[in-house]
């Protein structure tokens, strides 16, 4: 079967290992340049189902800030990022928001929750 070489930069941690993968029939048969096994998982993921963590903001009514930062609890499929962002844009929370609050449960049917990454206190009267 024909072999193909592809280069990757692992994004799992800040080290950013440069990986050299030998691919046969859509599967990596050999990986060089990784310093830990997460590099192997990363390449497998990039080939079959590339995923990314998504971090963005959600509108908040009556909070000390007009936005609350949110993130996907685990990486979601890369092709769905902009669909998710569009859905998040339709949401408006009401303060107070608590760190870890679930903003969207099972986002886009992925089974992954979108959660608040900080608390936003309600704006007190007169401040």
């Amino acid at each position, binding site marked *: 079967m024909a072999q193909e070489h592809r280069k990757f*930069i*692992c*994004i799992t*941690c*800040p080290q*950013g290992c*440069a990986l050299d993968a030998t691919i046969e029939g859509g599967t990596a048969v050999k990986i060089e340049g990784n310093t830990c096994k997460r590099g192997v998982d990363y390449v497998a993921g990039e080939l079959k189902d590339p995923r*990314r*963590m998504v*971090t*963005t*903001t959600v*509108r908040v009514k009556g909070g*000390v*800030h*007009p*936005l609350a*930062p949110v*993130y996907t609890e685990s990486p979601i499929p*890369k092709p769905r990022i902009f669909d998710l*962002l569009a859905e998040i844009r339709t949401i408006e929370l009401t303060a107070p928001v608590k*760190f870890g609050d679930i903003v969207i449960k099972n986002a886009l049917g992925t089974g992954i929750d979108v959660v608040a*990454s*900080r*608390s936003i206190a309600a704006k007190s009267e007169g401040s």
Partner: protein
Amino acid sequence: MLKEKYDVIVIGAGPAGLAAAIEAKKTGAQDVLVIERAQELGGILQQCIHNGFGLQILKRDLPGPAYAQRFIDELAGLHIDTLLDAMALNVTSGRHVSATSRWSGFVDLDTRALVLAMGCRERTRAQIALPGTRPAGVFTAGTAQRFVNIEGYMPGKRFVILGSGDIGMIMARRLTFEGAKVERVLEIMPFLTGLTRNYVQCLMDYDIPLQLRHTVKRIIGNDRVEAIESVQIDEQRQPIPGTEEIIPCDTLLLSVGLIPENELSRKAGVSLDPVTGGPFVDEKMQTNVPGIFAAGNVVHVYDLVDWVTQAGWLCGRNAAEYAISERKRHGRRVKMKAGDNVRYIVPHTLDKESLAESVQRLQMRVTLPIEEPVWVEVMNGEERVTRKAELYVRPGEMVNIDIPQSAYDAVQRASELSVRVIKRQGG
């Protein structure tokens, strides 16, 4: 309610300051205060909503605010004082801190140990001397990050980013998420200045072009940025004629480096390294001024917050140990107080342990002459430590009295010793 004297005062409540305050308290510092300019704790982490924080020390991949929250919660459980929305105005080499805030007014505070954790500032357009007109629409990447992530404003629609630092690349992705078009990232160096993983997940993922060895030749536009002219540069960093390109855009973001923020350090007499822009420090993170410590981006610019936290811990631990030894040293000292008919005494204080070594001589002058026999008495409250007879005393003639080594135990019990000169009354 603020105290007048602290064991440790920390200036800045970003990751370094939070870690330093927490560790100082855990090490045994009694009163710890954090002074912060913003209205909330956490520093720049609050606007760094992207993930990637905590992989080294927490073994978790957290967004900036979530990373900060962990330390904010820990701090809250430790009875550490905070002064928010406050400006530290001055710091002296004697560890005297002046600050002001809407809530406290102007306050003067003393501290046994001081931690400088003011972080850094972004390099601005003026500091890199970008030619061209001066329209609206030129921002540092961090300013744009605050607008987009905290305040809810988009600073533009079409962007060019100068500099391939992490904040610039992260903002390229963030602006793309919010519907803007990022036309180009330009980098004057022949290599990426941020992390490679950010090149992959922020630029490559969204097809944002990066051009190395390129810079902005001039900014075009009167009221608002209309375009920038980019140019390729050669090995000597000189523009290569003929490589110019006009890139239409309405906003230029600058991600061209960070400078440690050491205005206060200078006021305290802290010497700065011209290479890092931060204080010279020893292995304890202590500066050249005894009792003044520094940690985080104020010392040198880090790329991972985890290492900033570690520097904060180290610094906080050593600041607390310094404060505790200061307190002990101070506790060993007894103050000399001028009692009846004594104008002053030298020395003003005495180390209690000094009597283990030798006799200690006190010298003083009386206020009024007494032309008859007197006792010169050293007292601990009502308890007499020692006394000496004189036939008379006169202000023009200095009086001496020795505290003998046999008074060692009596002196250990005292926090203050007074000396009085009284008539002998037939004695």
